């Protein structure tokens, strides 16, 4: 029997809504003005290098990483910096952003714009990591953790396996799926680049069984490369979660508070791996990404190659505009994404999707009292007891109590809120619990 790769603890089966699976990636229109946040990652904001009036090209460094946990930010268009000020981001908070007025589309000369796939890697591990840092590459699966830190193995630790995360378990989203179908070879080369930096031979590309085309494309190609293997995982949400994927592929669990590198694994999203390929072998920094624009309220759903800093409104306009019956705009997937109202906010390195939802089923329902069914504990992929966390938060229990409940290990996947028959927003309580723990 073929071994099935799936995390065993908790999880749910969701309706897929992957309506854009067969939509080829289209270049989105370059907007007249882009606003690029200097912080699109976990860590400290990048230090701005340009000032008002400066002329920039596509790929010009705009802001320099401030410290180790930070990331470079590049211009996604050519033109003139018109203002640098705090503007509301998609989260609703104001963040420092660099606005650039677009003039033409002139790229930095160092960028290799050709379609040719480069096969040779002549750089040393240190050079590769330096390049990844220069490219401003961050974890594009949603966390935004700077990739160079992940790629540089700390002293005394040994990495054995690179897992390329092509699960994309969120409903609607197909950006990673399309990237794998259309850029399979680049992804494999990207994985080999990271392997070289890590000094290892093995990479596993984990793909959800609901992406047959991506599986076919990568399986066929991977046969040509030693050490690169495709593993097909059975669909279950949240299989794309780092801890869940490690469990599914290696059978090992990550102890609380440990990093994947502690058990010899590194997990990188396919989008990140593709960006690594582009930077290391083609000198192209991270200034554009694939965004799925979808939802039942979207007139022309599809997958778009979008310049970072493009206003969400301009992308919505391009896909048919915002109709009156749209209830919610979600950045990301419907399970972990955020609902926004400010459509002038820009697309960032972490924007995997923009969903326009109108169906009533995507609206929050009124909650009633807990009926103690225990389903939240049954579906929690972290093995937590969300009902107990909710109780502890409601009754203002001490931080110590929350720690005992391992509330800090919550991955915020939303399975508990999804499954709750009483419609209790349990995840909200878990998030409060996490905040309480962090405060101490």
């Amino acid at each position: 029997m073929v071994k099935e790769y799936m995390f065993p603890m908790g999880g749910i089966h969701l309706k897929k809504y992957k309506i854009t699976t067969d939509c080829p990636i289209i270049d989105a229109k370059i907007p007249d003005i882009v606003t690029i946040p200097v912080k699109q990652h976990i860590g400290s904001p990048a230090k701005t290098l340009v000032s008002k009036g400066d002329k920039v090209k596509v790929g010009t460094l705009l802001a320099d990483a401030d410290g180790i946990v930070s990331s470079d930010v590049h211009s996604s268009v050519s033109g003139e910096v018109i203002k640098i000020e705090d503007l509301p981001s998609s989260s609703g908070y104001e963040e420092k952003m660099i606005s650039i007025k677009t003039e033409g589309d002139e790229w930095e000369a160092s960028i290799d714009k050709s379609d040719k796939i480069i096969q040779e890697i002549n750089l040393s591990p240190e050079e590769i990591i330096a390049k990844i840092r220069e490219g401003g590459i961050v974890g594009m699966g949603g966390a935004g953790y700077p990739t160079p830190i992940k790629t540089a193995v700390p002293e005394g630790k040994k990495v054995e396996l690179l897992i390329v995360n092509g699960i994309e378990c969120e409903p609607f989203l197909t950006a990673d799926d399309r990237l794998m179908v259309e850029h399979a070879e680049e992804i494999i080369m990207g994985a080999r680049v990271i392997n070289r930096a890590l000094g290892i031979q093995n990479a596993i590309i984990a793909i959800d069984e609901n992406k047959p085309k991506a599986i076919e494309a990568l399986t066929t190609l991977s046969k040509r490369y030693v050490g690169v293997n495709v593993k097909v995982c059975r669909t279950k949400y949240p299989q794309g979660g780092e801890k869940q994927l490690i469990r599914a592929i290696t059978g090992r669990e990550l102890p609380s508070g440990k990093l994947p590198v502690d058990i010899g694994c590194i997990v990188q999203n396919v989008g990140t791996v593709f960006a690594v390929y582009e930077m290391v072998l083609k000198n192209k920094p991270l200034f554009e990404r694939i965004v799925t624009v979808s939802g039942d309220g979207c007139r022309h759903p599809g997958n778009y190659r979008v310049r970072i800093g493009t206003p969400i409104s301009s992308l919505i306009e391009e896909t048919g505009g915002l109709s009156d019956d749209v209830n919610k705009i979600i950045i990301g997937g419907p399970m972990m994404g955020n609902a926004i109202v400010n459509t002038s906010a820009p697309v960032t390195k972490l924007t995997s999707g923009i969903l326009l939802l109108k169906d009533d089923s995507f609206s929050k329902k009124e909650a009633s009292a807990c009926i103690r069914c225990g389903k939240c504990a049954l579906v929690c992929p972290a093995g937590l007891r969300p009902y107990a966390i909710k109780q502890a938060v409601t009754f203002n229990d001490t931080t110590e109590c929350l720690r005992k409940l391992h509330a800090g290990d919550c991955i915020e996947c939303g399975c508990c809120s999804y499954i709750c028959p009483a419609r209790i927003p349990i995840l909200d309580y878990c998030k409060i619990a996490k905040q309480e723990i962090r405060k101490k």
Partner: protein
Amino acid sequence: MLKISTNPHMQTNRDIRALMLDVVIALMPAAIAAILFFGIDALRVILTSVAACVMFEYLCCRYWFKSENSTKDFSAVITGLLLAYNLPSTMPCWMILIGAFMAIVVAKMCFGGLGRNIFNPALVGRVFLFISFPVQMTVWPVPHFLQMISPDGATGATPLKILKSIDASSSASTQMYSIDDLPSYLNMFLGNIGGCIGEVSTIALLLGFAWLLYRKVITWHIPVYYLLTVFVFTSALYFITGNMKFLPFAHLLSGGLMLGAIFMATDYTTSPMTLKGQIIFAIGCGILTVIIRSFSAYPEGVSFAILIMNAFVPLIDKYATQRCYGEKR
């Protein structure tokens, strides 16, 4: 107008009402069996009980809680059905009304309604009737397939009563039965035996269990561990003592065990939250059931066993946690 809300933006359509409706559906085979074996009287008991339970909950919401009518979630219907299933078909309507009052008003609404009660409402209603009206609660009309067409009105003993009385040490004043009086296992399985209207037909209850599992309303743990405990415990007693009153299969197939294990011990509100807790709870129910059935003055012990274990649920919930991701096995 754009709306803002916290994630997730998708929720299952399996809300309380949908789950409860599935339980009602799962209880239907037993209702059909009850009517087939005990005639139109069974239907009278069921309808009276359900109507009374729904009415009491409605009145509580309307005049006491002054809240939204909570009968829409179908939980009162389930309580009504379960209460009816735990009564003999000859039960007078006014007694059923009292049982329904105890179940809904005292055991459920006094604690704050669905999700807040400590004891299974239907069982509270049944036990109250059982100790208040012992005569009416232990008259067992002899089941008669298609009773509806030709009622005969005869009464007899339940298999558990027969098992109880074959033990020589039990009180001599009651009518004595021998092991030959025990109905065949096939009759027990089908439901052609004396007993409460909803508990007799094992096959009908198992059909309901299959539906609950298929619809993922419950997991298999509580019923299977409960039944297994009863089976293992009675088998052990049977082989050690050689006493026919511990006949394992007779215990498994008779009395309220199937109904209790599948539908009452699995009640969300009054059972533990984690699987580990549910297993402890089920094993406790099984042990108590056998002890009460074998050694107490009563032939049946499922209701008492479940109610006693209900009282332990907060304690079980406190200590029976589950393994977190990354913790040692």
